[in-house]
């Protein structure tokens, strides 16, 4: 099981989460011919007040996990327990009450805000569904407070999204995410679409809001240095599954899964001095299709350590046997039959 902090209940527990999108053929008679296994058995815990970073390359299923957490997609199987209660089974009023507490911040501030709505209407829209949080008369003031909280001028309440820059729009998206006073924020690539010079501003804002409102974050991003900066723990995804989880130091300094090692070694570091003495693991081949993932370990078609066992047995996400009784940073969850430490970051 994931580590986490002793004595604290996880606020979210995700177990065996699966999302398969049916692949159909035929126009008149639609027949299911297979499934895109976008997410195929994901487990993790999120503790109160912490940030769990989720990293992985394009198409590995990060956004699909995010959408299931905020109930924009229904899981094919698995559980999402919020404070112990499986929210995938809820409906009606009970579901609505829980949804309020888990909100999302989207990647693209250019397409995720309705261009015909004013900023005030965008941020206040969640109150239409949850009027109990802000009675009609108090909404304008609440929205202005939120604008202030995210560092925007409260007087901009009547402006439209196109009057703002990318970074400011992302602040609007964050304000909307905060409107219902959630406990959990799922941020899916919140800075990837922003100018590099503006990303740091938004990261700092997210950091500050976390302490101000005791928020728990699931922070999805492909930028490994930003994820390390903001995360307490990190999960690495490959082809629909989490292959390794641990604290940021465990993952970045003591990775034991070959995919994590390859990923870390492939990140370009902004230091030309590191060029000569860095070992690069260049993987061969492409990521297989999630409609037809390899048997056993999904990474085996690109793994330089793959052996027969890797094709036959699915490696479980657990502390590998060789580290189980050892103390130290290598003893964290890693889904590999032949896990071993390898230092890859200079």
């Amino acid at each position: 099981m994931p580590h986490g902090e002793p004595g604290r209940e996880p606020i979210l527990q995700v177990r065996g989460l699966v999302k398969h999108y049916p692949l159909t053929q035929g126009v008149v008679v639609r027949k299911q011919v297979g499934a895109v296994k976008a997410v195929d058995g994901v487990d993790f815990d999120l503790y109160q007040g912490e940030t769990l970073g989720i990293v992985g390359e394009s198409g590995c299923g990060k956004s699909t996990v995010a959408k299931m957490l905020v109930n924009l997609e229904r899981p094919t199987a698995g559980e999402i327990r919020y404070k112990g209660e499986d929210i995938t089974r809820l409906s009606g009023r009970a579901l609505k009450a829980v949804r309020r507490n888990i909100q999302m911040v989207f990647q693209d501030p250019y397409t995720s805000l309705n261009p015909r709505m004013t900023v005030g209407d965008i941020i206040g829209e969640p109150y239409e569904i949850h009027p109990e949080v802000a009675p009609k008369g108090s909404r304008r003031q609440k929205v202005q407070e939120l604008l202030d909280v995210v560092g925007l001028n409260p007087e901009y309440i009547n402006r439209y999204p196109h009057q703002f820059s990318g970074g400011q729009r992302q602040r609007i998206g964050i304000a909307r995410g905060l409107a219902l006073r959630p406990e959990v924020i799922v941020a899916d690539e919140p800075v990837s679409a922003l100018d590099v010079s503006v990303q740091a501003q938004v990261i700092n804002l997210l950091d500050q809001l976390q302490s101000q409102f005791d928020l728990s974050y699931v922070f999805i991003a492909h930028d490994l240095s930003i994820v390390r900066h903001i995360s307490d723990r990190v999960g690495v995804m490959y082809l629909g599954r989490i292959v390794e989880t641990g604290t940021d130091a465990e993952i970045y300094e003591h990775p034991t899964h070959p995919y994590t090692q390859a990923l870390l070694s492939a990140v370009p570091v902004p230091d030309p001095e590191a060029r000569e003495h860095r070992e690069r693991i260049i993987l061969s081949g492409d990521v297989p299709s999630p409609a037809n993932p390899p048997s056993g370990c999904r990474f085996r078609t690109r793994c330089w350590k793959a052996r027969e066992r890797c094709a036959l047995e699915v490696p479980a996400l657990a502390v590998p046997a060789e580290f189980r009784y050892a103390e130290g940073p290598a003893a964290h969850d890693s889904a590999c039959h032949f896990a071993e430490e390898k230092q890859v970051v200079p």
Partner: protein
Amino acid sequence: MRQRIMIAMAMALEPSLIIADEPTTALDVTVQAQVMDLLAELQRELHMGLILITHDLGVVADVADTIAVMYAGRIVERAPVHEIYRAPAHPYTRGLLASIPRLDQKGQDLYAIKGLPPNLTRIPPGCAFHPRCPMAQDVCVTEEPPLARVTYEGLVAERRSACHFWKETLDASR
């Protein structure tokens, strides 16, 4: 895969210079490494020049010999790769490098360049970076800085910076 086909098509003409405009996205780190590796190998074999356009300061540090930094339509700094990462001579470059998260900054605020990139139809007068620059003086508002030659002991290759105060910036960076 598509990237590799594009590269193969470009190479078929045996060019002496190849311009790669954001050839990879950072969304795919391991694929990016494959593509950059391929480009570097071809470049070695065919002795061709490479102009690599990217916003990723990691990618340039990995492959470039010389770096030109652009801001609001102009080159504001040009230098050999090792020199620029060791000590930037333009406040914009300095800000960009400072805003990359570093290990020893965990739990602290990241350095952030204030403000926003300018609207290209309303580029500020003088130095276009002055509204965001922590070192700006009066002269920066009125006079556009030329891409001046940067010199110091030990520098062998040509290095340039479009900042009235490149010396001060360089000293502050060291």
